[in-house]
């Protein structure tokens, strides 16, 4: 499940937000890869629409948006 989410997030971000080349692994720092505040808004929008979850102020931990894996874990938690 997490692995599938990581894969689909990677495609989503790569196609719609900023390029993620092979050097970006599931644990790489997304902020370093290009997640600035504008990209963060687009990412929240994409995640909410694509996975039908609602991000809340409580989810706004830098940690949750730090890597593909952490993001996938947060989405998985919210989907239960």
């Amino acid at each position, binding site marked *: 499940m997490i692995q599938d989410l990581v894969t689909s997030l990677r495609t989503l971000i790569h196609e719609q937000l900023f390029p993620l080349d092979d050097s970006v692994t599931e644990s790489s720092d997304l902020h370093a890869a290009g997640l*600035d505040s504008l990209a963060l808004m687009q990412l929240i929008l994409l995640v909410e629409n694509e996975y039908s979850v609602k991000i809340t102020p409580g989810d706004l931990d830098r940690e949750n948006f730090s890597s593909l894996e952490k993001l996938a874990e947060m989405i998985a938690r919210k989907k239960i």
Partner: protein
Amino acid sequence: MPETYAVDIVVIGGGSAGICASVAAARKGASVVLIERWDKLGGMGTLAMVQTFCGLYHPDVSLPPQLANPGLPAEIEQLSRERTGAEPVKMGKVYVLPQHPDVFASITQELTSAESSLDVWLNTSCTGIAQHPDESFTIYCGERSVTCRALIDTSADAIVAGFLGATRYSTPPEKTQRAAFIFSLQNVGLSAADESFRMRLALEIVHAVEAKELSRLALGTACRASTKHGEIFFTTDLDPAEATELLSQGHLLAIQLTEFLRRKFPEFSEASEPQLAAQPGIRETFRWKGCYTLTAEDLIEGTAFPDAIAFATWPIELRENTKGPRFTYFNQPVPAQIPLRTLVSAEINGVFFAGRCISATHEALASVRVMGTCFATGQAAGHAAVDYLTVDKITSA
């Protein structure tokens, strides 16, 4: 009676490049008129409220910040640091200097008024130009006109090429650099550097857009800390358009966002009315075709030019779509050379250009358009115009 003046050099456009061109020429003894259509100097750095100087420092960030260009770029850097108290900061692979539009306006005023042979014509639009058989020029500004023997185009739009029918480059709409509108709020109880605020702002904007409480344009808004305590700048990314259209979109959004911030964030409950930029931020329009056209390869590979007159240090920063900027860094972390031929017309004698309208490809312009580099090309164009007049005098004597 229409008034007519005669000077050695006319500089059209009082932005980063025009200020340095006119001051540099005046300091070499030329009589100069600087023409600016709005009520203050500084161009994008004051009128559009762009609040960072890029391109001032050597690109090697493993070293302490080191100025890349001597003379006026260094003087402006020093004055800005003294007045704002802001020091250069490292942002990833570059150094930048946070600046303040009000402070920059004062600096430009002081630098230009210190030169007795420089006359600044504010609130004056250049509306036409003629070149005479003896190669001198008349610049028309409504009822007023001025004649000169050398002309420097720092209008950012290569308007002189437009008036004289010389070749200008532009970029196809789908690749043209995006525009923006900037405003600031004062009396805010937090700092834009506060990461948790930035994340919450992002989330609240997304939800307000989804709830149709805010225009979708709000999704392109980023905030930046000011050098003034209690002030935050907001920059909204916009599709390139005419200035009037950009202004009306920007104003509407600034008002919506201010109301939204006051409602959602207690720290904004006492915030001022938005300070709106007088002009929209426009990144790319027309540029000159000079004796040489600078390319991305020249910058990336560090081409050596015998006629180098200024150094570029900013990476190629393309903002062609809503996905945000794309940076390409030079191969070596050393300043890249800009040759004099990119500031000189191949078609019209006596015309020089600097700043955002120098002869460069779309990609190369994405590096050399930053204000630090515009100071340097402006200064070089001012010197080149004086040299042109001096050489001319010797040959005709």
